[in-house]
């Protein structure tokens, strides 16, 4: 079974990925394969089993509330295609209000 075109387009849109019309069927088939593969996990009986967050038995590390980082606008902006006065510059984002 292949994911239908509508679902493929929705997944692509949510992932912000552009796909060509001729690729939709192929991607649908691939995604279906991946889903079926992951679906095998549901064959395992997990009733009464606590979800496992990690297998190494450690606690979440925490840090003190101290300023130890930042003040490196040059590094942060180094890969920006466009910048001005310390800002990233991007194509205009406009809320599509009705």
């Amino acid at each position: 079974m292949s994911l239908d075109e509508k679902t493929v387009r929705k997944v692509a849109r949510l992932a912000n990925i552009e796909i060509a019309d001729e690729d939709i069927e192929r991607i649908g088939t691939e995604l279906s394969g991946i889903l079926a593969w992951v679906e095998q996990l549901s064959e395992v009986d997990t009733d009464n089993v606590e979800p496992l967050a990690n297998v190494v038995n450690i606690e979440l590390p925490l840090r003190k509330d101290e300023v130890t980082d930042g003040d490196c606008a040059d590094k942060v902006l180094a890969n920006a295609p466009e910048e001005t006065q310390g800002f990233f510059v991007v194509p205009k984002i406009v809320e599509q209000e009705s």
Partner: protein
Amino acid sequence: MAKLIQGETGEWEIVIGMEVHAQVITKSKLFSGSSSVFGAEPNTHVSLVDAAMPGMLPVLNEFVVEQAIKTGLGINSKINNTSIFARKNYFYPDLPQGYQISQFEDPIVGEGVIEVDLPDGTTKEIGITRMHLEQDAGKSVHDQHPTKSFVDLNRSGCALMEIVSEPDIRGPEEAVAYLSKLRMILRYLGTCDGNMEEGSMRADVNISVRKPGDELGTRAEIKNVNSLKAVQQCIDYEVPRQIEILEDGGEVVQETRLWDPAKNETRSMRSKEEAHDYRYFPDPDLLPLHVSNDQIESIRKTLPELPDQKKHRFMDEYGLSLYDASVIIAEQARADYYEKVSNDNDSKLAANWVINELLGILNKNETPLSKSPIQAEQLGGLIALITDNTISGKIAKDVFAEMYKTSKDAAAIVEEKGLKQVTDTGAIEAVIDEVIAENPDNVAKYKGGKDKLFGFFVGQVMKKSQGKANPAAVNELLKKKLS
């Protein structure tokens, strides 16, 4: 009391729930060591973690956890021993990760309740559904260039608490009362500064209407509500809009709407609809957060006296009305000031002077209490002079005005200007005799049955004594002399 709105088809009930984002007071961000201070040059308070460079990992700020627990306890809520950070996925240029780290199914704070004070002098309990921690996004500036937007990530990754209420709010007054009380609690706790103008506290207001007793109606979520006034206004706009749609046989669309304070209206933000599929999942970079009961209890011990505890104590201990108590507890500094004024004095009289006279003149001059020219001890001194009959209440107002001008003590002003009340019977009698001698006609008329003239004599005596004669003594002596 629930406020019902009269429509063409009968009465409607307003149902409101609120989501409040409160920025946590910290030095550094939720998951990185860059500064969380407001107002720096663009992109200077940004680390490679906040900019979401590949390979960067979030490390949780332990102080934010303490602040969240403190807040949870302050809103009488259950603190969850285990909570989980989740990714909320959406694309926006001021969100470099492509997801916001938030909490979804397992927030750090669970159900609770806060008591709100309504304008009619009653209180109401509003349920808290949950409170979770999440990252703030950066800021986009749209008005600097015709075809470009500018992005500053200084806010990106700052710690926010999202406090979600139950749909227990029944009208604009209750909504305003809820938000003010919540802000008051956060300020008392020192977990959020509550400055709505600077955006460190923001509200989303979920509004629906229904016929009393019906199921909940479809709601609209109003965003960009950034002041107490805006809360009131957006409800006043949105409720009639929904009632009109329903009464015309239409249906309210479940949607996000934007409050426009310039045009005084809400309008649809259709672009947000599609993005509502957030595909939350547990963040694989962060293990579950565990907090022990010992930790919770040790934080509980650090809580200050909270607004409602103070309010009830002032009502019980000082005999204040709910209204007076709720005005005085609105700010911690105000409550402290009041307690100093009240100290050995009549507590209710102290409340009257603080609320009506002091706050009155401070508000008029737009002066904060911290800059008051009259210190609490000095106001207490003035009240002591009234209570022990050194000066009358009327003279006290003049002394107060002088204190406000000069910052001098009440006793010094009374001494300097010779304002001490005359209670000496002989001195008052002498004045009365003078007045009687000067007004033989009126004395005759009074004795002839014109009782109303009594007020005239009191006025004359007070005038002659420059307001210093004790009014009770004047009354008593005049009656004797004129009979």
